[in-house]
């Protein structure tokens, strides 16, 4: 039997209390891991979402920048319209490498989400859309047969759900809720792991006709020849009063700003959880030290040195923190999915990829963090125990 066993047996004696303390540490670790993991994950998912958009600049109707930023990423691209003329006007700008017009329309489908109802996004696009988005490729079928054909290409996820629900695929006809026109499915896009996987794509002219908004666009996606020409380009568009130019790096920055301000709040919660856990650990160990006053005296009487007692109490603290760290990591790994769901509900914009990035490094960091906390919080109780004098303790028992 070694010190470790002795310490372990001491903890086992007060099962429920030890268990609760370990639970407190575990929760603190789980919260910390999830928050840090969310931070890293969100940033990465957002960056990949923005990169996948393909365009660096989006021209939309004027509006609130925050609203515009989240809308752009949600694929709604502003429900205000701009004139197609503006597109024709800027297409010849010398700094533009690639340009594509977009018309995004949201249509309410009462049958969506098993009858709960919800919006579907219909995007009117031209062939230049494919050139701008390098990772958008046809998985099956082909491009629209003409500029204003009654045809539709489905995003990857949308195609799957239609296949499941309606048993329809390339060659079949589908209808738009609330509209008369039937559309033939001509193609399916490959998975892009972005929100557009859930969209319908129509030829731009068809979309304008069906939704009765001829000559209008919701946005224009642009890739510049050189990104450092952005400012000059923006300045040239400045005289057109009805539009605003949003660069994707700006969008990213705006959303990260929002997330960062939430982060400070979230971090304070994490630190409170850790603080409470430390107090819990110190309290538990200190209580067990005081309860065991006599026992500690006996151990000293039969040959334990100050250092021995210090070690014993300290190891107890470390066991609590280590177990808390292990359980906390497990909770974080398995509870992460739940947190992700929760986060998706409350965030203004949740990117398509995984939001929670729990890496081995992060787990290791939190785990060792908690051990260090354990080492520190064990100091005081261990010191108190070590400085007890055996004789008084033994007297008090008589």
């Amino acid at each position, binding site marked *: *039997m*070694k*010190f470790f066993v*002795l310490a372990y*047996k*001491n903890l*086992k*004696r007060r099962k429920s209390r030890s268990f609760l303390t370990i639970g407190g540490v575990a929760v603190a670790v789980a919260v910390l891991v999830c928050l840090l993991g969310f931070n890293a994950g969100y940033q990465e998912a957002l960056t990949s979402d923005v990169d996948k958009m393909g365009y660096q600049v989006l021209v939309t109707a004027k509006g609130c920048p925050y609203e515009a930023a989240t809308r752009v990423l949600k694929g709604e691209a502003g429900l205000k319209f701009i004139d197609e003329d503006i597109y024709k006007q800027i297409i010849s700008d010398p700094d533009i490498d690639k340009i594509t017009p977009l018309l995004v329309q949201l249509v309410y489908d009462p049958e969506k989400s098993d009858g709960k109802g919800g919006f579907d996004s219909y995007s009117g696009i031209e062939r230049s859309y494919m050139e701008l988005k390098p990772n958008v490729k046809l998985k099956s079928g082909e491009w629209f047969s003409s500029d204003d054909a009654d045809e539709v290409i489905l995003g990857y996820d949308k195609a799957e759900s239609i296949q499941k629900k309606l048993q329809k695929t390339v060659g079949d006809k589908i209808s738009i809720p609330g509209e008369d026109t039937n559309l033939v499915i001509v193609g399916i896009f490959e998975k892009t792991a972005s929100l557009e996987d859930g969209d319908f794509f129509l030829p731009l002219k068809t979309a304008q006709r069906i939704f009765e908004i001829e000559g209008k666009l919701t946005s224009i996606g642009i890739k510049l020849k050189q990104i450092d020409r952005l400012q000059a380009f923006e300045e040239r568009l400045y005289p057109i009063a009805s539009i605003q130019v949003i660069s994707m790096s700006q969008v990213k920055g705006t959303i990260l700003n929002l997330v960062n301000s939430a982060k400070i709040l979230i971090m304070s919660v994490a630190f409170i959880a850790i603080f409470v856990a430390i107090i819990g650990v110190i309290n538990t160990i200190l209580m067990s030290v005081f309860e065991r006053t*006599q*026992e500690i005296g*006996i*151990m*000293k*009487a*039969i*040959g*334990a*040195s*100050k250092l*021995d007692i210090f070690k014993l109490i300290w190891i107890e603290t470390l066991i609590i923190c280590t177990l808390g760290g292990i359980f906390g990591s497990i909770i974080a790994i398995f509870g992460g999915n739940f947190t992700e769901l929760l986060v998706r509900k409350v965030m203004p914009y949740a990117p398509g990829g995984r939001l929670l990035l729990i890496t081995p490094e992060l787990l290791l960091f939190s785990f060792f963090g908690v051990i260090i906390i354990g080492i520190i919080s064990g100091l005081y109780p261990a010191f108190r125990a070590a400085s007890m004098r*055996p*004789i008084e303790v*033994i*007297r008090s*028992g*008589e």
Partner: protein
Amino acid sequence: MQDKIVLEAANLKKYYHRGSEIVKALDGVELKIKESEIVSIIGPSGSGKTTLMNLIGCLDKASAGSLKIGDTEVASLEENDLIKIRRENIGFVFQRFYLIPTLTVRENIELPLIFAKKSINEKKLLVLLEEVGLKGKERIQVKYLSGGDKQRTGIARALVNDPKILITDEPTGKLETEVKGQILELFKSLSEKGLSICIATHDLELAQATQRIIHLQDGKIVPREKSDLYY
């Protein structure tokens, strides 16, 4: 070498402060304990027996006087040095056993070895268990033991470090008469193997069974006639 002195106290004093009053718990005690000897210290409650046991057991420090364990003067030593002396020379047996209830008999006995950083000698441990009469009970948690077996465990724990002196404070105070006799027999056989034993007690019967009786009265050693415990 029969008369080798293992412990020698001279003019040993221990004063306690109780408010403004000074309690002279020990007031100049002279005591010599020889190798292989059983000495009993007898005196009424409050006469200073426990105080004396704690001092010669190196659990507490004297206010004045000298104390030699073997050839070492310990009165002036600090706690850390006292621990070493204690680990090597002294086994302590308490009236209330002071075992760790959730550990087994064996674990309790091994505890001093852990603290002394000594490895466990299986054979020796078995011999010890046999000697104190605990053979076959080593895996029982001590809280389930009878008083007698608890004290046997306490004695085995005191002996595991091969001490030269066994110091016991009212070792049979909590035990029934029958068990008392058995413990006394155990002490006798231990002393025959060279161990010195010092028993503090107010039990005349127990004291009379030992080789030498020292009477303690108000912190001083007195002749038998002056003792309150006349017989």
